[in-house]
């Protein structure tokens, strides 16, 4: 006769979907990408050309007239905001003990971050570098050509 050993612990229930692994991976993939994106961004803005003095509306407008920089900035926006939100979610999970408060804070966090991502993306792609009513001195140089044509 074989001995029946009781199961020392009740078997665990099957979970629904589990995103923790993907969150963890995202932090590690977005991190190195952000290093390249952010430092190139800082270098181009502050060290090339006239350096720190060059940054004004015209400089930003000039960059966003180029699809390359549009996509660069949108990639930075999405990667950094999702990275920051996932990171803050970790911090919230650490410091909240009441499940309701936790859900509320994480919900608020994702709403704010979602709104920022949407607004940011909208601005980058619908940006008008030559608003018709502004002082021409503050606009990028190519606006004159567009205005006279």
């Amino acid at each position, binding site marked *: 006769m074989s001995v029946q050993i009781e199961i*020392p*612990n009740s078997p*665990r229930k099957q*979970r629904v979907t*589990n995103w*923790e*692994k993907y*969150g*963890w*991976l995202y932090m590690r993939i977005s991190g190195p990408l952000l290093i390249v994106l952010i430092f190139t961004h800082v270098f181009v803005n502050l060290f090339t050309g006239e350096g720190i003095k060059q940054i004004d509306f015209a400089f930003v407008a000039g960059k966003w007239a180029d699809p390359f920089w549009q996509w660069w900035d949108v990639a930075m926006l999405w990667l950094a905001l999702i990275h920051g939100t996932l990171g803050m979610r970790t911090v919230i999970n*650490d*410091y909240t*003990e009441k499940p309701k408060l936790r859900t509320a804070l994480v919900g608020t966090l994702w709403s704010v971050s979602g709104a920022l991502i949407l607004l940011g993306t909208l601005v980058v792609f619908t940006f008008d570098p030559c608003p018709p009513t502004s002082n021409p001195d503050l606009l990028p140089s190519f606006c004159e050509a567009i205005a006279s044509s």
Partner: protein
Amino acid sequence: MSDVKEIAEIPSFTVKLSIRRFDPEKSEEASWQEYEVEMHATDRVLDALHKIKWEQDGSLTFRRSCAHGVCGSDAVRINGRNRLACKTLIKDLDINSTITVEPIKGLPVEKDLIVDMNPFYQAYKDINPFLVANDKPEKERLQSPEDRARYDDTTKCILCAACTTSCPVFWTDGQYFGPAAIVNAHRFIFDSRDEEADVRLDILNDKEGVWRCRTTFNCTEACPRGIEVTKAIAEVKQAILRGRP
């Protein structure tokens, strides 16, 4: 003869200890209490605790069994670091200032240096800490020295809880499985004779599983057995990403 006695003399010194006391029958609050004891250079913190209990204050409460770093009963926080009282020589600490001794953090204190270890053991039980092999061999199951070496480090655990209670993530809400449970899962996940690595990997691929580890290295620093705890956790993370050990 008197010469021999002189040579054998061990230097002694007076040390101050500040011990975190808690007695739920007397007060809801824990408080620090100071003691002064005459100790030898060969003495350990456990000897100081004994001396206090036996000679000064019989109410001081702590756990210990083997007194030689084997049973894992006497993990405490000494000068802010998790150590076995029986493996920490007093002379290795700064004896010019007061030595603090308090219970390990993150588990409910029951009295003085004694904590309720049940949540810790529950996390250990949850990872199925036993060999699962369904074949019915006539002889012992063979394993190559290389396969045995794969998980050698994590076989050394004595379940003292020094690692888990040094982990800031465990301190937050005590829901995290904790380093010790992952170390003991590692011991079976990478054992070539075991058949349930996937079950254990699935258990640790959880909201409260390996992904909560933030690579703080407190656990590795705390382990009295010298286990590379953080490395073991990282290996389990990688195994989950691979989908196999």
